[in-house]
């Protein structure tokens, strides 16, 4: 990596660290959303980008993670820092059930993907009818004063939430980088590229695929916890919906699946794009229903068609850094 690139990255990191003191609440909320997708994208990337197991049901882990911590807080007053462990364990367990079912019975490729969708869908339907958690009417967390920080209960200002998700996204980046250079990273990529050859080299592919799914699920659960306490409400229709799963994977797809920086870059581009399109439509006075989504869709289509491996691999080549 050359010095200029390190400087750019350091500058970007510095801007992110200082952002709450220089930006207004609107910019901060956009940045929070960007970091949220950067985090979930990285979590998904471990399972799909590194290990090659395509999940289209990551809303499952967002939802279970969110509901577990929210329920502990709502019913028993147990704060999220204790509750997140329940979220992690539950999502790890659910992930291992999905993984074990699929990998034990040789469900792979698109059928594995269908299984991940199915789990998210029937969990959504189950939560719709679970009255203890509010059912389809939703679960609402007590909103407290927005100007005081109660870090213990994750109640507070937008800046507090911003720093929490910034820390999560940075930790996910460090974890991904470490995993990719470790035995797990080599084994996952080998499994992704050719499972039969990986097995012939002594890799217990079942065990390593399970590790990928459980790691990814556990990481995603924290995004669910964040989401629950940031928005103060949870609806099965929203948090378990396939739209959430698709939002999760768009960042890595645009940025570059299986790369370290891809999910973060993708999340940044998508967040900027969404807001940019909104501004554009308003400026041009094209306030027709659906036009925003149409422009957004066409741009996504163009990116995916022109850069099928994502933006980061191309950019990395230009900057002469490793992917």
């Amino acid at each position, binding site marked *: 990596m050359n010095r200029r690139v390190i400087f750019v990255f350091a500058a970007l990191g510095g801007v992110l660290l200082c952002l709450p003191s220089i930006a207004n609440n609107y910019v901060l909320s956009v940045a929070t959303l960007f970091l949220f997708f950067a985090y979930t994208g990285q979590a998904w990337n471990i399972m799909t980008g590194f290990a090659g197991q395509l999940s289209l049901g990551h809303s499952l882990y967002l939802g279970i993670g969110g509901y577990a911590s929210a329920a502990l807080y709502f019913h028993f007053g147990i704060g999220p820092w204790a509750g997140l462990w329940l979220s992690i364990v539950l999502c790890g367990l659910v992930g291992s059930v999905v993984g074990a079912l699929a990998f034990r019975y040789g469900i792979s490729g698109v059928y594995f993907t269908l299984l991940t969708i199915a789990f998210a869908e029937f969990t959504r339907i189950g939560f719709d009818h679970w009255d203890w958690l509010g059912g389809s009417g939703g679960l609402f967390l007590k909103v407290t004063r927005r100007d005081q920080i109660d870090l213990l209960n994750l109640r507070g200002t937008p800046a507090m939430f911003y720093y929490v998700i910034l820390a999560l996204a940075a930790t996910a980046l460090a974890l991904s980088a470490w995993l990719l*250079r*470790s*035995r797990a990273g*080599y*084994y996952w*990529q*080998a499994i*992704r*590229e*050719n499972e*039969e*050859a*990986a*097995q*012939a*080299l*002594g*890799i*217990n*592919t079942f065990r390593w695929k399970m590790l990928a799914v459980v790691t990814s699920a556990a990481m995603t659960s924290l995004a669910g916890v964040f989401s629950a306490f940031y928005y103060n409400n949870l609806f099965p229709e929203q948090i378990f919906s396939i739209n959430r799963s698709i939002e999760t994977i768009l960042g890595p797809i645009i940025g570059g699946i*299986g790369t370290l920086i891809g999910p973060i870059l993708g999340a940044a581009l998508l967040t900027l794009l969404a807001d940019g399109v909104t501004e554009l439509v308003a400026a041009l006075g094209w306030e027709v229903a659906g036009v925003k989504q149409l422009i957004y869709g066409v741009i996504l289509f163009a990116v995916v068609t022109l850069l099928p491996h994502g933006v980061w691999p191309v950019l990395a080549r230009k900057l002469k850094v490793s992917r």
Partner: protein
Amino acid sequence: MSVLLDVQGVSKSFRGLRAVGNVSFEVEEGAIVALIGPNGAGKTTIFNMVAGALRPDDGEILFAGKPIGGLRPDQVCALGIGRTFQIVKPFAGLSVLDNVIVGALRCCARVDEARAFASTIVDKLGLGSKRAFPVSSLTLPDRKKLEVARALATRPKLLLLDEVMAGLRSLECDQLIAFLQEINQRDGVTILLIEHVMRAVMALAHKVIVLHHGEMIAQGSPAQVILDPAVLECYLGEETLL
């Protein structure tokens, strides 16, 4: 010499089609044994059963006295059997060196150890100048060598080579023969190879096993086998094999 691999009366059918029928042979520790025969003779099927990719219908496979028939490929590898694939299966998105590191991680506890070990193997196979290349840029002969490098990186006691000479120019072929002899003699790696390139078979093999229609029709030293009437018969009645 003790017997390292003992194949006892192994059979395998695919939907009623008998690919391998009641084949028995032994591979002595430290030997180089060649498995030859016309296309469809069942050579690769036997490899797949030894390597754990296929479960034998019948019979027993012993490795160092331990039954291995029906174990998973990774378990077989962990016992010390490395294999290459006839149709190469590289990790296409990874570099040459990273491909070999994946194999080296079987024995090396740390990634940097694996990298150093993989590096020496890549050098020995003449892929050193291409270590950072993505596999997708390699020619087929180089991919064959990569298969050997990757399998060897798992530090096998027994190396199964499935037609690694195919497509190599004669100079490259001689280099690979010399390399295989070296790892056999110096490192004591036992080798079982499937090979159509008779030059390699004659140069390497201590023993040759001939299969035809899934059955063993001859075994012996290379010089004996190529004069065997049954072997000549199965190779379309050719007068000589060489």
